[in-house]
Structure formats: structure tokens, C-alpha cells
């Protein structure tokens, strides 16, 4: 049984954070242990929310509790970190996970989604950024899945064309030691691309666009990629990204059609991806032609 630890936010209603990652992974056969960094009613896209972020000591306690009952260093195939509410929590996660990987016989593969913001805006406090920098410099992160804004923030390079995209990746590699990089979406010439990089290769795949914005997209993307990454024996490839993007697209398309039917007009935003209702797409095995371009 493949085993994964997912550390991210919890919302009672809707699909972001652990709510967007846990079910897709479970449905694909994973035993998922989930640590919730928040307990909110819903995500901020609703205009209002209630609930609380988990205090750092509560997160520390949960990890301590897990260590008491299982072989924390060796039990997980993958450790997935997503939304963290503040630098103190992220620092605890960094310390605990680095310790686990360093002392492990069966190294867990650490996947980091550095949730910072999107569309030019920070969602979190700025003091999280240096902690992510330290995490990426540790040499222990197997895969990272930032969006364009997050990647620009961490690399310090603004992406406006393929030349600057390349520059951003080179700069990121100069600053940090991360084996595999996947930028979930990059906008160039009004089109969206998914950009991957491993072993000094850089490649990209076109993203089929839906004229609508979706909340929780990055979390779902990361979960789907984690599963394919495992299936592909942790070797990042364009075919892997192609498969993930196709599944993601089918789920988003389903979600768009569902809300269109429900409200009777063209939606401009889908607050909650229909992760459960569109579950058939989670485990379909697609044979796809991959239209990949290498930089």
C-alpha cells in the first residue's frame, strides 16, 4: 500500500488544500495521512470565511503524536506540503521533514507546493518566503510545483517570454537545489503553458484553456502529479505532465459545465472544482500523444 503524508489547509466546504488533494489520492489507491494547517469554513474566494489557522504548537504536537505510533522517517513514500498559514508552522515542517529524510532508510520523496499567491498577489505573509528559500536550498526537495507568480517570487525573475522563462529556471537552479521543477502554468503571448525541468532539460506543454478561473486548481494539480510521479518511478517526463494536464482539464471542464447548468449562464469563476463528482477522471488511464517542446 502506497503511503503519503499531506500537510495543507482544511476547509469544511469546497475543494482547496487537503480537501483537493486527499480524495484524488485516496481514490487512486493511496493511504493518505493528513495534517490540517487550518480549519476554515471555506476558502477566501467566497468573500468571507470563519475558522482558525492551526497554531504552530498544535502542528508540532500532531507530528510528535505520529512519531509515537509509527516509523515517521520510513513509513511514507511521499511527503506533500502545501498551504501553510505562517512562517512558524513552515519552520516546524521544514525541521521535522528534513530530519525525517536525513535519518531515513527509505527516503520519502518530498514534494513542495510553495503556496504564496497568484496573479501578482501574495496571499500569505512575506516572511514565509525566506523559509521556502531555505527549504529549496536544503537539497532534499524532490519536486516543486509553483505557479508562475510563485516561481517568479522565488527566482527573482519576471517571466514575459521564453527567454525569460529559461532565465528564471537557470536562476532558480543557481539559488536552490531542487531535482524537479514543474511550473503549473505560465502565461506567454496570451496562452498558458505547463513548464517542466529536470536534469538540465527544460520542456513545456500547451494547456487547453477554459475561459474561467478556478479555485483550488494548483492543489489538485499537485495531487495528480504526485500520483503520476510515483507511477513514473519519480522520473519527471513530458508524458507525465501531459497525463496530469489532461485529467485536470477533464475535471475542470466537468466543473465548468456543471455550474453552467446550475446557474444558467456562463461562469467567470468556479469557486469549487467538482473533485468528487468528476471522480471518474481521476483514475482513467489515458494514452496521449504528447506535444512537447524543449527549450
Amino acid at each position: 500500500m502506497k503511503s503519503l503524508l499531506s500537510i495543507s489547509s482544511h476547509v469544511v466546504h469546497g475543494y482547496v488544500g487537503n480537501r483537493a488533494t486527499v480524495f484524488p489520492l485516496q481514490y487512486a489507491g493511496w493511504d493518505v495521512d493528513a495534517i490540517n494547517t487550518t480549519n476554515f469554513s471555506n476558502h477566501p474566494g467566497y468573500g468571507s470565511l470563519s475558522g482558525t489557522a492551526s497554531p504552530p504548537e498544535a502542528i508540532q504536537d500532531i507530528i510528535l503524536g505520529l512519531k509515537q505510533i509509527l516509523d515517521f522517517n520510513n513509513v511514507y513514500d511521499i511527503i506533500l506540503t502545501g498551504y501553510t498559514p505562517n512562517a512558524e508552522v513552515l519552520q516546524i515542517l521544514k525541521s521535522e521533514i528534513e530530519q525525517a529524510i536525513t535519518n531515513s532508510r527509505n527516503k520519502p520523496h518530498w514534494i513542495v507546493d510553495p503556496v504564496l499567491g497568484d496573479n501578482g498577489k501574495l496571499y500569505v505573509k512575506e516572511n514565509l518566503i525566506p523559509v521556502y528559500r531555505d527549504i529549496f536550498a536544503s537539497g532534499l526537495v524532490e519536486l516543486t510545483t509553483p505557479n508562475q507568480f510563485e516561481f517568479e517570487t522565488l527566482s527573482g525573475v519576471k517571466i514575459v517570454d521564453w527567454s525569460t522563462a529559461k532565465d528564471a529556471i537557470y536562476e532558480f537552479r543557481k539559488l536552490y537545489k531542487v531535482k524537479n521543477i514543474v511550473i503549473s502554468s505560465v502565461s506567454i503571448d496570451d496562452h498558458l503553458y505547463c513548464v517542466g525541468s529536470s536534469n538540465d532539460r527544460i520542456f513545456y506543454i500547451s494547456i487547453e484553456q477554459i475561459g474561467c478561473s478556478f479555485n483550488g486548481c494548483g492543489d489538485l494539480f499537485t495531487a495528480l502529479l504526485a500520483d503520476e510521479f510515483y507511477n513514473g518511478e519519480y522520473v519527471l517526463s513530458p508524458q507525465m505532465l501531459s497525463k496530469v494536464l489532461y485529467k485536470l482539464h477533464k475535471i475542470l471542464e466537468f466543473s465548468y459545465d456543471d455550474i453552467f447548468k446550475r446557474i444558467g449562464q456562463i461562469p467567470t469563476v468556479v469557486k469549487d472544482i467538482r473533485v468528487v463528482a468528476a471522480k471518474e477522471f481521476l483514475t482513467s488511464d489515458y494514452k496521449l500523444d504528447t506535444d512537447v517542446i524543449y527549450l
Partner: protein
Amino acid sequence: MKSVLSIQSHVSHGYVGGRAAIFPLQTQGWEVDNINTVNFSNHTGYGSFKGTSLTSNELNDLLNQLINKLHISYRAIITGYIPNASLIKTTNEYISLIKQKQQQQKHEEEKVIYLLDPVMGDNNYLYVDKSCIVEYQSILHNKLVDIITPNQFELELLTNSKIIDKFGLVEAINKLHNDYDIPYVVVTSITSGSIFKSEEEDKYIHCVISTKDQSIIKVFDIPMIKSYFTGVGDLFSALLLDKFYKNKHDAIINGIHDSMTILSRSVNQVLTIMAKTLKLTHKLGIQQAIAATRKDVNYNNNDDKDNFISGKINDGDTMKYFELKIIQAKEYYDYDGDGEFIEKVLELN
């Protein structure tokens, strides 16, 4: 789109509370909104755990946002582990509000179903604060519950009784129906030997079901597996909600009005799924335990294996192998046949 509000515990590792309920419901197409009453590292049966409980203020804020601001509509509500009286009280207030808001629904099939699993303990051992007993008794008078799924111990607590014979059992069940106006009662496990006299008594536990509008009470005999599992009641309640909802819906379409038929079919289906899940859990648990200890112990025959390896309460070393195999059992949750258990009518003679 079917949506359910689930108010249950969360453990980071393992499958009890919401963790045992949510995935099975999701595989059946339910949109589960889950409020975690606690966030623990693992369930308490390991002998050690860490974590925190929700406060009443936090629960109130979450429910107020969902119900009064986002105006989310639910087809069902399921509540399980709630650690103290004030959280039970707040939960009940909002369920009352949810039901009031949906009073205007014209069709019977649109009414929200509330399934209450009054998680308090088992085998005479309390899991929750003592104040929960009086609080559950108090809120039950509000007559909001449609289905209740206590085990024997919880049934005794709710009715201030000690069940030692069939008459006591029937009296306790009738109290739930009459004092609390609960239409459907499912007592998930009865073990007292004096209630069901049988030569094979120690090989079975019994599930007893009753509907308010019919006098017949039915019993299912369930073969016991010699191991301690946790989260079984939570999984049972979630599956029952799903099957009951489907069967009630189908019954309305087909013009069937017999409540006991609907309930017994649902329970039989759930027991069938549970039996497969527990068998799988036991099988995989033994495999895992053997794999983990294979270098240390020699086995000469299967009997030794089965006797040696089983889940034991407060023993973290065995408990971890016998977590319910909720994920691996995914293919069982679809079951919609007639059920594989024989139902009997409870005779008072």
C-alpha cells in the same frame, strides 16, 4: 448533487470518525462538508495520541458561516464523535436551524435526513466527557433525529438502563422511538449472552433494528472476528446513511411505504459491505504484521498465526496493522444487492 454535513473527529493517521466515514461517502458521490470536532494524530486505542479539540466558539463560527452566510443546503447530516456537552449543544442548535430552513420543502424526498451516531463508548468504557450523556438525552427531546445508531452501551446510557434481557432491550428501543420521536433505530451491536440464548453465543454479535411506525423488531446475527477494530461504528453509520438515502429514494419512486423494508434492506447491505471490509482488513492486517515480524518469529502453522496476530486495544504495535482498510475496500461500497445476512424477527418468548 447529494451533499452531507459531517461533524466528526479527524485523525491524521488511521481510520476512525470522519476518516472512516468521508471516503466511503465520497466514492458514492456525496459532497461531504466535514467539520472536525478534534484534530488528533491518531485514535486513542494506540495508547498514546496528541492533538486538540474544537471549541464551542469555533464550532459556532464555522456553522454560522456555512448556514447563515453561505446558505449551504444539505440533503443529510451525520454526527459522530463530539467530545463534550457544549459542542453537542451547539451542533444541535444549528441542526435545528437547518431543519427549520428546509421545512418549506414540498416533497418528502427533499427533507434533510439526520443520522446521529451517539459516540460515547463501548464495552462499558466511556470515550467522551460524562457530561455528554445528559446532553444527548436533553437534545434528543428536540426530536430532530431521523436515524440513530447506538451500540448496546450507548443505548443503555441514553435510556438510563442496563439491558440484561429482551424485554429490557425492547423497552430501551421504544424509549428512543416514543420519548425522542426517532423513526429509525439501529442498535449496531448487542453482545449480552442472556438476551439471545444460543449454543454459539460467543461466535456472534447482533444488530437490532426497529422503526417507530411498526411493532416488528428485527435482528441480524453477525459472526465475530477475533480482533479489535476501531472505526467500525463510524463506517457503519456512513454506509447506512448512503444506503438508506438510496433505498428511501427508490422506495418513493416505486410507491413503497414500508419503513421496515427500507431499513432492513439498507442495514443488510451495510452489514454485507462491512463483513467484506473487515475480512479484508483482517487479511491484510495479518499480512502486514507477518511481513513486519518475519525476521523475528518462526511460524509452524496457520492457527498460530491467526491466534498470535490480532488488534489489541491500547497496544500500538498491533493496532497499526488493523486500521480499517478503507481505501482498499473501495470496490465494496457500490454494493446494492439484497444483502447476504439472514434477518430474523425478535421474539419475546
